[in-house]
């Protein structure tokens, strides 16, 4: 099933008196359960594309459909609903709520979706179990390591079992061991829950895990590569 469809997407930003084109004529499609990544150097447009898919930004030209909804035509309330119900976000710097506990951070999306306390408790504990942090539920982010923070962010993104998870440079602040750990966690969740993962990265460690690699250069799709399952296992 198609989750994301991008048609002739162009994104421009005002810059001084002129404009800067961050994305040019992008055409892509992503289906359910993909583990794909937008790869490219800084300034290639991967984060911009991820933001548009995440309905945090809108296209200048072309159309982007996420779960059948045209991002450019959504009101801010509809866009918020789409994010709330169907999307999970994982950020480079974790973006956890610093004064909330691990439990409360993971619980947050469920509060927005108005789950009752019993359901929330069970779902949060399940999510923390996926990422191996059940013993840290009462800790606050400043008491956790970078790897643990990112695992909390994964649990927060996954707790509502969204159709799509968008991860922007999720390993940029992590060492190799932690990077592999969280990538294995995400891959496992992708496999078990059939959640579509879309990464924006230039980290080789992440790239090695991807099943589909889309190379961006200067705002255009430069190359695309599908990796066979056997190759990933080998890697």
């Amino acid at each position, binding site marked *: 099933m198609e989750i994301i469809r991008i048609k002739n997407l162009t994104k421009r930003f005002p810059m001084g008196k002129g404009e800067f084109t961050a994305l040019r004529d992008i055409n892509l499609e992503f289906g359910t359960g993909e583990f794909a990544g937008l790869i490219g150097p800084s300034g290639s447009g991967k*984060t911009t594309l991820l*933001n548009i898919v*995440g309905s*945090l*930004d809108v296209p200048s030209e072309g159309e982007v459909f996420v779960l059948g909804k045209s991002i450019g035509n959504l009101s*801010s*309330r509809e866009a*918020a*609903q789409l*994010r*709330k*119900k169907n999307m999970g*976000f994982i*950020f480079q*710097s974790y*973006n*956890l*709520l*610093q*004064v*909330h506990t691990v439990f*409360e951070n993971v619980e*947050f*999306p469920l*509060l*927005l*979706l*108005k789950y009752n306390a019993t359901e929330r408790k069970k779902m949060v504990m399940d999510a923390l179990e996926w990422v191996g942090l059940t013993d840290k539920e009462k800790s*606050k982010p400043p008491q956790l390591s970078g790897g643990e923070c990112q695992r909390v962010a994964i649990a*927060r993104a996954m707790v509502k079992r969204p159709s799509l998870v968008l991860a922007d440079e999720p390993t940029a602040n992590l060492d190799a061991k932690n990077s592999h750990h969280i990538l294995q966690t995400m891959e496992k969740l992708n496999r078990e829950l059939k959640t579509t993962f879309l990464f924006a990265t230039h980290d080789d460690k992440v790239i090695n895990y991807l099943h589909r690699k889309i190379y961006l250069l200067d705002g255009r799709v430069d190359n695309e590569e599908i990796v066979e399952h056997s190759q990933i296992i080998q890697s």
Partner: protein
Amino acid sequence: MKLALKLAYRNLMGAGLRTWLNVIVLSFSFVIIIWMKGAMTGWDYQAKTDMKNYEIGGGQYWHENYDPYDPLTLTDSHAPIPGEAKNEIDRGEMLAVLVVQGSIFPQGRMQPVIIKGIDPHQNILKLPTGSLDTVPEAIPAFIGTMMANNSRLSVGDYVTMRWRDTHGTFDAAEILITAVFSSDVPAAEAGTIYIPLKKLQQMTLLDNHATILTFRDSDISRPELEGWTLKTSEKLTHQVDEMIRTKSVGQNVLYGILIILAMLAIFDTQVLSIFRRQKEIGTYIALGYTRNEVVGLFTVEGAMHALFAAVLATVYGLPFLLWQAKVGWTMPIDTSEFGMAMAQTLYPIYTVGLVVTTILIVFITTAIVSYIPSRKIAKMNPTEALRGKLQ
């Protein structure tokens, strides 16, 4: 809203000291405002009660020429007690008072006084008139503490008093001070000597005459009496209201300063929050909040300071306010010199209206002050906010 309250609570609790500093300042405003307003209400109540008890009763009829601020009118401000009033006087529901000018000579000094003739058996005013019925061999008189202090007279002292009768003839006699009362009502005490009404009527040849008819506090509608002016207790205490209102203006400035101080702290925290918590704002939006909902969350967060402050104010303020209501606030200076009905110790009175109004004012002001800087969030670009980039 429920979610905003829950999140705001978590955020404020998580912010720790920053929250509590604001809450302490705000709670201080709550307590001070309620205490000072309570003191004003207490003063108002005490002043009116004392005036009713010692001076005006439930209201008065004044002889049409009577002007308490012009002693020269006293010569002509008396008339025979009207027939309509006699029954009430006999039943003890009304009190006739004759007011004339005179002088006393304590320690050889001449001091002008107002001589008031009053029925020794009255019970409308709380004056010690019973003491006027105890000395048959002299003219008994009682005075207020203020007068006693000024003339250095005390119970048992004799002093020469001079007056003029209705024909303008001067006469003098010794009076005996039989009681000294304390009332906190300057008009009842300052420069005033009370003697039996009948005696004063004899002394001035004004048999059956009176200047003031004071009636008991009741709901009876009072008719107009020819030659007399009806002064209800509301009219007679109007000056107290005016004075309290004037004092309240000055006090309101102080409340304003207190609230502004507290609001500055809240405003500063909000502005700082919006700058420091850009990434958090972006995260809320990414997780499914609209920008307006984030504005709402920050506004609730700011306004919740007032809620915490109300709780804290209850914890330490309630015992303080109750203690003050019990022991009162003793003025550091002698209030008898103020020239108005003011007790040396003020007992604050806190009404439900006062507490509710204060809480509402502080709540609404806090909410507005929290909302103003939060509006900036509505204009934020979430992608920039997510990166923590200042906007």
